[in-house]
């Protein structure tokens, strides 16, 4: 695969829920190393787009290519195995386990040893790597604590850390700062962007906070009514009156 091959390419990706148009012939290309923000009003199809890519929702029509490989119609488990990981708007964690154990399970899954039933989960190599991962996300102080003791921002970061530990080529994040206190939003994003820059991960994040997208996105896609109505540099795209109207409901 040469450098020019997009990491992600969707071709005429379409999905209806009854009469609701959630995705209408979406054609998007994301290149290696990009950090792409997706904005749009509620119900504009942002999360459906992530659900389509990860196989949680099957498209009515269209194709999804990951590193030039067709992954249309694969279930989330297999899409993940190919190298696409995602985080969720509501963090999906293992509430009964410690913060470190949550990460260790991702590492075990990534190593393909998740159904190993004889060797312990607590292996030197994984503990070390798990602690490093937690350090990168600033969560090392919570390693031994139950997940329930994490503040909301920490839960969001852990959710992303679980996806990150899978060593994906493409990371999809659904509203990484929603539910995070306003004062902590930029801190969460700073941490995230730093981690992404240090590793060779292409990322897409859905965000309804225009300020966050403007500040962190290198490129922004604007969704409206299941379509991409604008694509480009955040400063220019978000200044456009029609975009502001579609996203904010006012110019």
């Amino acid at each position, binding site marked *: 695969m040469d450098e020019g091959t997009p990491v992600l390419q969707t071709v005429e990706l379409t999905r209806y829920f009854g009469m609701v148009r959630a995705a209408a012939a979406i054609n998007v290309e994301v290149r290696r190393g990009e950090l792409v923000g997706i904005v749009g009003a509620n119900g504009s199809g942002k999360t459906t787009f992530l659900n389509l890519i990860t196989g949680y929702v099957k498209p009515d029509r269209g194709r999804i290519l990951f590193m030039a490989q067709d992954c249309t119609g694969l279930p989330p488990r297999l899409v993940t195995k190919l190298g696409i990981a995602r985080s969720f708007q509501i963090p999906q964690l293992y509430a*009964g386990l410690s913060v470190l154990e949550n990460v260790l399970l991702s590492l075990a899954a990534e190593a393909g040893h998740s159904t190993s039933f004889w060797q312990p*989960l607590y292996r*030197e190599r994984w503990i070390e790597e798990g602690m490093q991962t937690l350090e990168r996300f600033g969560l090392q102080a919570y390693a031994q604590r139950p997940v329930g003791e994490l503040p909301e921002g920490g839960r969001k970061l852990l959710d992303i850390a679980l996806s990150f530990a899978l060593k994906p080529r493409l990371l999809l994040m659904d509203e990484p700062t929603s539910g995070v206190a306003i004062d902590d939003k930029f801190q969460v994003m700073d941490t995230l962007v730093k981690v992404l820059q240090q590793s060779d991960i292409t990322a897409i994040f859905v965000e309804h906070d225009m300020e966050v997208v403007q500040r962190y996105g290198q490129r922004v896609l604007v969704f409206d009514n299941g379509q991409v109505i604008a694509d480009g540099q955040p400063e220019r795209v978000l200044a456009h009156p029609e975009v502001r109207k579609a996203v904010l409901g006012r110019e």
Partner: protein
Amino acid sequence: MELRRLPRAALVAYALLLATPLLVPSWVLFILTLALAKFLAALAVALFLWAGLVSFGHALFYGIGAYTVGFSAKWFGVREALLLVPLGALLAAGVAALIGLFMARYRGVFFAMLNLAVSMILYAALLKLYWVTGGTDGIGVRSPTFLGVLPPREIFRTAYYYVTLVITGGVIWAVYRFLASPLGYFLKALGDNEIRIEYSGESVRRILYLTYILSGALGGLAGVLVAFTVGHIVPEYAFWIQSGEFVFVALLGGFGSVPGPLVGSIAFEFIRTYASKYAPEAWQMTLGLIMLGIILFRPGGLWTIYETLASRFTRSEGGVARG
């Protein structure tokens, strides 16, 4: 609970169980042997409770284990423990591998009831095919041999107790390793969040399926050991009340740990013995009242009484414990 190593108390308890034959009369030894054997089936049920699933059909595997002993004796005259113990476990695991293919697709009440349904099919077959199974008369089994040797009558009970204790000890160790492994942790995580497991590239169904096979093997093992202990096998081994008893025992002792069901099993057998001696008309009521008390005051089971006491006397260890 601490999964990475056996609690010291379990080792102390095991040492006590080793010394028990020197200290107690023969009938107590019989009840303990029975409790140790049935514990394995309660542990099999506890594995699923661990994942937030309840099975009301594990008597299926228990029955398969017991009838492995029965048929071997009846048709082939085989009563070698070292052959039948693994055989019963293997046959039960084999059946688990077959029905696990569709059990692993279900959760909640469907999982509970499907297990019950399958076990009742076996029960009905054991009951109705009396020319094969002996029906309600069951099958009588003589004492097992060990490598062809039949221990003398006077020491047989003690010898068999030790055999059961060694097997139980091996199973406890193996299940600890299982629970401390990625698969064991995924099993626990399954009750919390199936979505995250699938989005880690792991299959929830595969986790349940593999656990189901292990669980079936444990149920079968329990059936073999109890068949040898009691010496008489009847279709009730596969009846749903037997399945319910395993769930009861797991809850009584506490399913959050491996020693829990063991404590539950020992407590259960003694409660039943004494309750049916002193209140023969109301022993089930006694059990009911005890369960009510456990759920109201000790929902984690009897074992958590020890855990609470132990944590009061020892300081918690800090840092990343390495297993």
